[in-house]
């Protein structure tokens, strides 16, 4: 059953350039029809993984499987994968029509079929009126859609997209995100999407793989990654987070007591709690903090501090609060129900529930000796 639904598997892939490991032992299983995003900062190895799947980069070790069959050594032209390159890589000397027709002509399809399928593909991306233009006569968004049509016209097994929206302005990007998502639902193809933009990854994907320095840190659904980040890096990279370092004390009935900065705080735990005395790191999202002015809040965790800085963005206030116990904290409060009047220097109390926080691991640094 699970065998059947697998589409692409990257198995323990390593790619070294000299002494640098661009990709370091990454394993990914992508199911058929899924929209999976590789998310990570620049240089984390996203493009290299995509290129290895497409066949342009030969992994140093590990395998790429398509429906259980190793395709690691297959040349790119025999893989039947569509790819949208960073910067599109349209053929500058061919019209839009010929760009889109390329894959069909390379396969020697009859002229009538080429004509029909190209027209279909151009319709799909709403570019039919531009068929006879050259790529340089199109806007960035239109070029992006040509690249998409060119990669889809031959019904590939898989569509690979390398930061297809990063060159576009913000408004257009938001529109095309929706279009891409709709397109994915319409064609039912497996999409493997690369971006360094966390909002893009969260809003479009079925699952997101987070990469850091060539390693896969966490792979899961967007909500799961945001709510239950496995490491400090994930919590920090996906949105903002406060971190509290403490020492575990004792657990009872699903909560763990830990000490941090002379306070005793509480953290909900699902499985076995960390042993007493163990150091722990807790991540706390700014929007999960309640901010009150006078009396300490009646939440399980409460910390007092002074507002060091604040800003207003229409939908919410953002407060930077210096606390003696746990250092500087960021809190965001919806503007319409903010119960305090923000002022620099004002004393406030921060409160949160035990299940608002999550225990995360410190990330192993690539620089540390091992």
């Amino acid at each position, binding site marked *: 059953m699970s065998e059947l639904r697998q589409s692409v598997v990257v198995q323990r892939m390593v790619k070294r350039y000299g002494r640098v490991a661009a990709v370091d032992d990454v394993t990914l299983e992508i199911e058929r029809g899924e929209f999976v995003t590789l998310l990570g900062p620049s240089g984390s190895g996203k493009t290299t993984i995509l290129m290895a799947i497409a066949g342009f980069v030969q992994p140093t070790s590990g395998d790429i499987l398509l429906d259980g069959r190793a395709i690691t050594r297959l040349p790119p032209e025999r893989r039947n*994968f569509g790819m949208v390159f960073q910067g599109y890589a349209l*053929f*500058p*000397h061919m019209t839009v029509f010929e760009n889109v027709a390329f894959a069909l002509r*390379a396969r020697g399809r009859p002229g009538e079929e080429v004509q029909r399928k190209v027209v279909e593909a151009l319709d799909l991306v709403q570019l039919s009126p531009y068929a006879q233009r050259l790529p340089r006569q199109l806007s960035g968004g239109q070029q992006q859609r040509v690249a998409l049509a060119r990669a889809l016209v031959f019904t590939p097994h898989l569509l690979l997209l390398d930061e297809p929206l990063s060159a576009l302005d913000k408004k257009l990007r938001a529109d095309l995100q929706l279009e891409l998502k709709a397109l994915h639902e319409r064609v039912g193809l497996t999409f493997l999407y690369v971006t360094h933009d966390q909002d893009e990854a969260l809003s479009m994907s079925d699952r997101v793989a987070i990469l850091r320095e060539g390693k896969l840190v966490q792979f899961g659904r967007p909500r799961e990654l945001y709510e239950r980040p496995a490491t400090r890096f994930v919590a920090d990279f996906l949105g903002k987070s406060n971190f509290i370092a403490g020492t575990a004390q004792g657990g009872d009935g699903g909560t763990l007591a830990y000490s941090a900065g002379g306070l005793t705080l509480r953290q909900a735990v699902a499985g076995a709690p960390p042993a007493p005395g163990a150091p722990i790191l807790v991540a706390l999202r700014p929007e999960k903090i309640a901010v009150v002015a006078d009396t300490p809040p009646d939440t399980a965790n409460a910390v007092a501090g002074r507002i060091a800085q604040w800003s207003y963005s229409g939908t919410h206030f953002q407060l930077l609060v210096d606390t003696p116990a746990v250092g500087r904290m960021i809190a965001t409060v919806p503007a319409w129900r903010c119960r305090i009047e923000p002022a620099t220097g004002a004393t406030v109390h921060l409160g949160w529930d035990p299940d608002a926080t999550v225990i995360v691991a410190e990330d192993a640094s690539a620089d540390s000796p091992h």
Partner: protein
Amino acid sequence: MTAVAATGAHSGRRFFFANERTAYWLMVAPAAVLMAAFYFYPLVEVLWISVTEPKPGLDNYALLFTSASIRRTIVTTLRICTITTAVTIVLGYVVAYVLVHASPRAQRWLFLGVLVPLWISVLVRAFAWVTLLAREGLINTTLRDAGIIEQPLALIWNEFGIVIGMVHYMIPYAVLPLYASMRDIDARTVSAARGLGGSRFYTFRRVFLPQSLPGIIGATVLVFIFSLGFFVTPAILGGGKTLMIAEYISLQILDLLRWGLGTMLASTLVIFIFVLLAALAKVVDLKRLFGAG
């Protein structure tokens, strides 16, 4: 020359001249005067002689259509230049292709290999070919000793020898514009074509080759024009049997003292080249082609 002077004026930080235009013209002036004195004046003089010697009129030009020996020389010249250009472009294309795809380290060595011949006198190179290609030269003696041939091959003192010598001389002039245009090709378009199902060869033919076309056109014109004016190589490797136009002109002027005829042919050559360049300018951007701007 003018291009060098002009960029000099722009790259300078601050000049003492009142404005940039004055500075520009002052810097261009020496070069312009030199060009006028040693280039345009003789050219006009040549044109003038061709319509006045031995008597005023276009009689010299009529010879283009009536003289059998002139027609033969022109046909020979065009044939040799066409073959030379074709062979040079094919070989130069291969060299440029390898250059573009080589690692930066290998590229430095390859470039050296391409450019070093430019610093060796054309005379030396022609005689070097003689020692290789002559009846008792290296190639013939080696082949005979190996028992592959009995009679020496006629590799020299004919058009074959001329083409070899000229191709050798011309290759760097083909490689440079070809390399420049190939370097501008986005390598990802080639990857994209492979990913879309194009085999190596199909991708080369439909994606790489068409994008290198400006370089091919530029190199072709450059090599063809250069080879029209070849003198030393055909004179030595042709052994006096194959007469190309440059040698024919020098023969008319220096040996036969027929100035009118010689200058007429020279003028015709110059006009032909200008027409060629004008036609080319309609197809491609010459400035970009030859690396300016």
